[in-house]
Structure formats: C-alpha cells, structure tokens
C-alpha cells in the first residue's frame, strides 16, 4: 500500500513539533515534579479588562507560571494561591480590587498587574500596606514613579522613546506626530518625553491626543496630517492602533509617513489583521525579546502556557512580562528563609533586595532596590511587521534620554553596569 501523503505530512509535522524545543517540559520554581501541599501563600494580581482594552495577558501568564510552580514543589512546599481582580478601567473598581486583595486578604505581594487605572488609584494603598507590586503591563507613570511598584514591562514612555529613537536614527524622522491617549499620566506623559527627545536631536514632535472613551481615529489622523509630521507614532493600545492603521489604509496614507509604534502592537495576530498593505511598513518597539527568539525563558514561557495556561492566553509581550514577574517573584521567595515566606513585610524586603536577575527575555538585568521610582527595563528591540509575523531590525539597544539618568545611577550603585 502506498503511504498516504497527508498522513506522512502530519507525521512529519508531529515529529518536528515533538522535537522542537517549544514543546520541552515546563520548568518552574524548585522544579521537583511533586505538587505542593502545604498552607497556601496568597498572591494578588489586578488587570483591566473592559473597553477600550484587554490587559489580562500578564495575569494569565503569571497564573500559568504559578500553577506550574505549584505542580513543582511550590514555595518550600507551599502552593501559591493567585487571586486576580478586574479593575474594569474604573477607579472605583480599582480601589475595591486593591481593598479586597491587599487589606482583606493576607497576600504577601501583588504580581503580574496590568492596567491603565489601578496603579494611580492604589499606589498609596500599596505604600500604606507595605506590599510590593511586581507589575507586568504598566501603562501609567505611577507605576514607575512610586516606591512600591516595579514592572518587568517598560511602559509607554521608554517604549515610545525607543521607537522614536529608531525612527530618528534609521528612518530619518524629523517631525513625529505622537498619537497618544488623552490621559495625563499615559499618553500626554509619554508624548511629552518623545517631544523632549526629538528636540534634543534637533527635531520636533506634535502630540495628537485621542479620547479613550470615544476614539475618533479619522479626526486624529487628519490632525496628524495637518501637523506636517513625517512620522506617525501610534502610542495606543492594540485595538485603537489597528483602527488607526485601518483608517490610514482607507485613505492610502501609508507612503506619506514613517509608521512606528510602541509594544502594544507587538502581538502575533497583528500582521495578519493588518494585511499585506502594511507588511514592511510598520516598525514596532518590543520591550521584551521578540517572540521568535528561542532563549531558555522564551521557550519555557511558551511551554508553561501550553501545559498550565489556557489555549486562548495571549502570546504577547505582556504575557512574557507576566511570566517574568512571576518567575522573579518565585526566585526571590525560594531564596528566603522558609519560615518567612508568609510574612508580607519580609517578602517586601526580599523583593526590594532583588538585584541582578537576568533572563533572555530582557535586554538588561532586573532589579528592584529601595527607591521611590523603579524602571529596570529601559532597553529593547525594534521589529518590523512582515507577512506572517515580525522581523527584527535592531537588536537590544538602550534608549537615550535624560529621563533614565537616575535609573542608571542606581544601576551603577548596585554594580549592574
């Protein structure tokens, strides 16, 4: 009997897949292979999932990693009970979520938080309760400029600066229209930083602000067009960014500008959603390692999601950031005295003591330190949207801005540079 070509093909794919490192077994925490059975350690997480954006991927990945840790010995034999709340992009709900997780529950830390709202509302709560937040999808300034918050993602300011720096150095950008959300601690904050950067390089930047509640992308595009910019920086969540690019395609604006964007557009579904019109024409800053790189953590994150996550958990940068925050948290907990891992004050102290943790997902070392501000991640990649995915156009590079001087000083003090 002749072999069926379809069956042969399927068998070949299966063999390749099984042989691929992406299908390696997930490795987590103590990696004992034995489930943790002791008294649970409570860890909280808050994400924002409502219009205009879904920021659940960081807590999804953190949850998968914690499930993997629990299946592999937990924290000195104790499982992590991960409690996640949705702030619904609403300050009242954000305050209530923190009240429940921080004040009503004996959580030792918050991990994987991703939101546009909750850090601004709850920064004081975290400080008053002396609980550390190892966030992963921070989008507002409070996440980087308060004592109890530290994030593995970069947030809009560095990621936009990275994209602007690339456009200025490689694409010849002289005037950038920064299309940000009309939120003082998000779009305005990051677009102002881009303006300062461009001025320092002899160029200019014009902010074009969009109301997140009722985003009128056509008006914003017209405003960008009228500004005389040569480059458009789409400083938006993925949903609105796609709407902007779709509107620009309808008006055939592609070749009039350089198109750049920060990390939210770095999502594997984006190239197909955009279609061939945009392939090769949009440059995106990646805050963490591009998804096609196969370092140990990059592969382990995928393995963890495959084994312990849900099928629809997003494979995006914020997912990577959630995994990283969870992994660094577990590493710090495993280095603690087992008697102290349920004590919030001691866990906070251990988190502040984190220094020099590394991962192939991050360009630089991760650290926390005892400071009023934290931004350990301020170097990244640039990728280009191409058919079927993304192509790296610039490898790890550090962003050039006076904003990072105080962070560099701390890194020097910690011996990380």
């Amino acid at each position: 009997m002749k072999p069926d070509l379809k069956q042969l093909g399927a068998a070949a794919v299966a063999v390749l897949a099984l042989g691929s490192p992406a299908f390696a077994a997930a490795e987590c925490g103590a990696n004992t292979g034995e489930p943790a059975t002791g008294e649970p350690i409570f860890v909280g997480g808050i994400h924002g999932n409502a219009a205009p954006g879904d920021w659940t991927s960081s807590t999804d990945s953190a949850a998968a990693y914690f499930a993997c840790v629990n299946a592999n010995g937990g924290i000195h034999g104790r499982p992590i009970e991960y409690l996640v709340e949705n702030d619904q992009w609403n300050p009242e709900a954000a305050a209530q979520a923190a009240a429940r997780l921080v004040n009503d529950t004996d959580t030792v830390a918050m991990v994987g938080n991703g939101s546009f709202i909750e850090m601004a509302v709850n920064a004081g709560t975290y400080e008053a309760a002396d609980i550390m937040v190892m966030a992963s999808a921070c989008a507002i300034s409070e996440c980087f400029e308060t004592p109890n918050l530290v994030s593995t993602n970069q947030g809009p300011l560095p990621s936009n600066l990275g994209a602007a720096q690339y456009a200025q150095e490689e694409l010849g950008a002289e005037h950038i229209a920064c299309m940000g959300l009309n939120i003082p601690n998000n779009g305005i904050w990051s677009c102002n930083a881009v303006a300062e950067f461009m001025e320092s390089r002899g160029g200019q930047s014009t902010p074009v602000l969009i109301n997140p509640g009722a985003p009128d992308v056509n008006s914003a595009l017209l405003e960008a067009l009228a500004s005389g910019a040569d480059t458009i920086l789409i400083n938006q969540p993925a949903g609105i960014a796609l709407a902007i690019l779709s509107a620009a395609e309808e008006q055939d604006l592609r070749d009039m500008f350089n198109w750049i964007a920060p990390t939210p557009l770095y999502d594997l579904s984006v190239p197909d959603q955009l279609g061939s019109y945009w392939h090769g024409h949009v440059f995106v800053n990646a805050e963490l390692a591009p998804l096609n790189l196969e370092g140990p953590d990059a592969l382990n994150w995928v393995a963890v999601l495959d084994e312990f996550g849900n099928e629809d958990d997003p494979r995006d940068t914020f997912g990577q950031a959630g995994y990283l925050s969870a992994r660094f948290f577990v590493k710090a907990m495993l280095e603690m005295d087992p008697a102290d891992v349920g004590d919030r004050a001691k866990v906070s102290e251990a988190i502040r003591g984190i220094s020099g943790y590394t991962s192939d997902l991050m360009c630089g070392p991760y650290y926390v330190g005892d400071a009023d501000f934290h931004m350990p991640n301020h170097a990244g990649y640039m990728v280009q949207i191409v058919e079927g995915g993304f192509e790296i156009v610039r490898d790890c590079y550090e962003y050039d801005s006076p904003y990072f001087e105080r962070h560099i000083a701390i890194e020097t003090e910690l011996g990380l540079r």
Partner: protein
Amino acid sequence: MRGLFHVTPSGWSGLGFAAFVILLVPELAGSYWLSVFTSAACFTLAIAGVAFLYARLGLVSLTQVGLMGVGGWVMLRLNHGTDLPFEVNLVLSALATMVFGWILALPALRLRGLYLALVTLMAAGGLEIVFATFQFPNGGEGFWGVTIGSSEPFRRPALAQSPEAYLRYVAICALLGFLLIELHRRLQPGRAWAMIRRSEAAAMAAGVNVTLYKTWAFGICGLLGGAAGALLAGSLGLLDDGTFRASESVMVFALAVVGGARYWQGAVIAAALYKILPPLLSTWGVDADLAFVIFGAGLLHAVITAPDGIAGQLRGAIVARFARKERADA
C-alpha cells in the same frame, strides 16, 4: 414651627438606618465592602437630588452624574490648589455645582417632560466631552490643574483619614442632604413645588414665583450632586472621565424611578442596586453585567406596576400589614 421638627415614622426609620450605617457598618465591613459602601453612600446623595427634582416638580434631569463630575472637579482643583480644609472645599464644591445647576436650569425652565430631559441629557454629553478633553485636576498648575505624569497626593478630611471614618463621614453628609430636602419640603418652597407640580398656571395665579422655585430646585439638585462628586473624589483621591459618562446619568435617573423617587428609601435602594449589587454578584461568582438585566427588569416593573418604585411597594406592604393587624385587634 412644631411641625417643622416633627419626626414621622418614616423619619425615625431613616434616622435609625443612618445610625446603623454610621455606627455599625464600618465596624462590621471589611476593606472591600467599606470601599463599596462609601461609593454607594456618595451615589445615594446624588440620587436623592435627582429623585427630589422628579418627585417634587416632575422634572426629569439626566445630568446628575455630570453634576457629580463638576463637584468632583472643583474639589480636586481646590484640594490640590489651596490649603483649605476638606470641609471648606466640600461646601465650595457643592455651592459651585449649585450655581452650575442654576445656569443649566435657566434655559431649560420653559421646558418640561421629554424636552427638558433631552436638554439635560445634552448637557451631560457636553460635560462628558469637557471631562474627557481637559481631564480632572491632579495637582498641576493653571486653570485646569492637570500635571503631566503622576498625580499629587490628595488630602482627606482630618476627621476621616481611615476608610471606616470616611464611610461615616460620607454617611453623615448624606444624612444632612436628606434633612436638607425634608426641611425644604416642610417650608414654603415645598408648598410652592407641590402647587407647581399640580399646575404651573394655578401656581402662578396664586402668586408663586415659578421661575424662582424651579431654579431653586435645580440648585438643590446640583448642590447634592456636587457634594456627592466631591465626596467621591475624597474617597478615591482622583477621578476619571469614564465615571461621569452621560449614560451613567440616564442609569441613575432610571434607578431613582425603580427605587422610588418619593421616598428616602428609594434613593438608598437605587444606590444599592447601582453600586452594591454588581460587586455582590461578582462575589458570588456571577458576571456583574447581569446587574444591567436586573435594572432593566426593575424599570419595567416600576413603569408597569409600581409607579412609586420598590420603596413605595415596601411601604404599601408595611402599611397594609399594620392595617390588617389593627383590624384584627379591633
């Protein structure tokens, strides 16, 4: 004068409920529920304002949450821009919103029913755009007071630094709001409003200054909405334009009707439906959006069978029970 201070059975039950909220609830509730109840108490005050306008004059205002935003805006601006005590800022916020309510009322005074509702809805839409465009003050300079980047810390009242104390503080403010409404109801404005509600022409013929008393009522509605917004700002330390959408004003009015606009219990029920039911559903593991279905069913119920809302039905049931008992005793 004796009638002015006469406490009705409904009044006693209101004072008892206030005492329960002020004395017991903060001791019993955890941090999460304290936060939920504080929001609910703020909205009780705002709903009391819009319900009062509807019950006394039959006027439909769909701007109440927008007016809360005005009060919250003034509170944040004063808190960040001056060293005045919270209480002074609260009064100024309420008064500023009252003036705003007057300004809103003047062109709308000749309108009634659907047309007035539409005008107030458009005002709410306008406020929504202003809030989204200019944002809420967060410690910056200039008129709008918006700083780029992180917000400056907010000063809570010296008397109410803890969440428990702040819930008591808001509950006392809400009680004062209800007493203000009741005071007006028992004085000349209350009589004038009753006459205007029956017939504007008759009221004018009787010498009632209709313009003055309608404006007055809008002012009180604005005052209570402004105070509620200022208290909400105090609870969170910052405000977001998403909280003050025009659709929320429509929702608040609809729930005021569901709760029962004529009674103080109606405002409490409406605030409980609006702010306590969704977290309760969430706590039970049910999607909080189910609350909207319940609101819709409640509105249908109120429109079809209960014009006095849930509070009216409850009061009716209690009165009927007492009447039966009296008949049985006799």
